[in-house]
């Protein structure tokens, strides 16, 4: 039996906008086994980003529960869930969301600063990560001096920084050409194989989906295999 890193039970999210209720998630039950790459497809507005955000602890469900690493994160308080995000989750965004005023090195270093690691530890870890994502030579460049593919590599390195249990990626190839999208998935597979890193990727890019261990589809808040 494979250990599940993430488990959602009857997860629902309902938004209220001007007295109209929008059901973003409707009784979602999802299990993510360790060291797997899971994809979630679905049209925009189907609730896939909401699911990702709830699992990542940046959004709260209306009903149901989410356990990550055997911890029910829906019960965590604000400061606990902040720690949870810092230590257990790595985020990769569609537009990379790097800090434009910081160099590649500093962007990767940020989570280590937030978790108050000493300088030597940080420098060692960041240069290892730069090595892993093949960006050693670009360490001192600002994001706007990097290509889209390079920026995404830095974003991956940042997501990996604190050795997270789970990496969440929201349309990670949405802003990349197919060559870079393929390279991105190659890196994901490599990290998955070598380090047993678990990924949950929201995408509608077939280049991504075809590399995943399991694909879910979400439509109108309902999850299907």
């Amino acid at each position: 039996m494979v250990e599940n890193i993430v488990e959602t039970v009857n997860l629902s999210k309902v938004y209220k906008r001007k007295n109209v209720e929008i059901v973003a998630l409707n009784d979602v039950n999802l299990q993510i086994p360790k060291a797997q790459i899971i994809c979630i497809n679905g049209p925009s507005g189907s609730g896939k980003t909401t699911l990702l955000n709830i699992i990542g602890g940046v959004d709260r469900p209306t009903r149901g529960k989410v356990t990550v690493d055997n911890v029910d994160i829906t019960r965590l308080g604000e400061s606990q869930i902040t720690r949870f995000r810092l230590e257990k989750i790595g985020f990769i965004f569609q537009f990379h969301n790097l800090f434009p005023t910081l160099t590649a090195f500093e962007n990767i270093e940020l989570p280590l600063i937030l978790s108050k690691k000493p300088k030597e530890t940080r420098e060692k870890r960041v240069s290892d990560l730069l090595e892993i994502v093949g960006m050693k030579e670009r360490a001192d460049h600002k994001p706007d001096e990097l290509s889209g593919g390079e920026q995404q590599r830095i974003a991956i390195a940042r997501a990996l920084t604190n050795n997270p249990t789970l990496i969440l990626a929201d349309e990670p190839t949405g802003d990349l050409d197919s060559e870079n999208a393929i390279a991105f998935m190659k890196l994901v597979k490599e990290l998955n194989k070598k380090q047993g890193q678990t990924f949950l990727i929201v995408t509608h890019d077939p280049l991504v989906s075809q590399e995943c261990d399991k694909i879910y589809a979400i439509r109108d808040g309902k999850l299907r295999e």
Partner: protein
Amino acid sequence: MTVAGITVGVALILVLLSLVAGIDAQVKSSIRSLGGADITVYNATITGARQSFFLGSSATLNESMVSDIAGLPNVYAVSPQSTEVVEVNSILAPIWGIDPGTFDIVSGGLNLVGGREIAQNDTYVAVLGKGLQQLFNASLNDQVSLQGRPPFNSNNYNLAVMGVYETGVAVTDRGLYVPIGIVQNLTESQGRVTSILVKVDNPNNVEAVSSEISGLFPDVRVVTASTIATQASQLLNTLTVFFGALGVVALVAGSFGVINTMLISVVERTKEIGTLKAIGASELTVLKMFIFEAVILGCLGAVVGVAIGSASSFILSELSFRLLPTAGRLPARISPVLTPVNVAVSLILGVASGVLAGLYPAWRAARMKPVEALRHG
């Protein structure tokens, strides 16, 4: 632009503090330069230099009053004084004619920085203020020529420089002390003096003696050191309230500028804040970041404000020197006093208002929900 308000506020407060300190110092040394005289008796209507400037001589008190006052109980010593404006080496300067025999006892004497004081049997001698001495580059025993102002411009004297004094009050230091007879002869006011300095045997008797003098001579003005101090402190209070109010208004306006800029910057950086929180930055971390930014803005405003404030308090004192006709006996220059404490107080006020203004935007940033922040742009 953001920090302009804080800058202006800090500058105003610094100007306030340094001018008040300057005026305070001026008043204190003026009181000191009145000599330790407990009571000064003037003519009731017009004082000193102004009358002498327009009407020739201001000496209207009869010299016989000196012995009358000296005969009052509790009076320790009395010294007549004639203060006028004359030309010294063709330059207008205030001149104090004193009685060498009693001046020291009543006033405690001059603060000499060279030479000696006027002795009882000196005749054609002068003790110059340091400013005047520097102006003429005069050495001891040099001659200075004195000439009365119209209508007494035919009267003149050549005096030997016996000593140099310094009071720290610019106007006083640009004058000179001579035996009282010289002034009386220059202004043809023999037998009359402009003021009478009185020393009382015990400070507790100052009020009693001064009312006694007022009773004896209803036409004169009797001024005690404490009345001068009271007037000065009233002026200071007025100035403090005025500049203080301006400064506070500017600081408040400046704080709104900072609030506005920081709110804009919070909105502009919504996505960055969202990312930061998503990757695990706590509310406290975000709060600290924005407060740090406010501190930087506050410091910037405060430092620039201190620079502008220091500069403008000097300019202001320069202007007050040139524009105000009289601030006392002669155009008085108020030298601003920039003490480290004043600078520190203004800096702290500036930084503090920046931080206070930053609190709300920082709190907004910290409380931002990461999901909503990420959805932004």
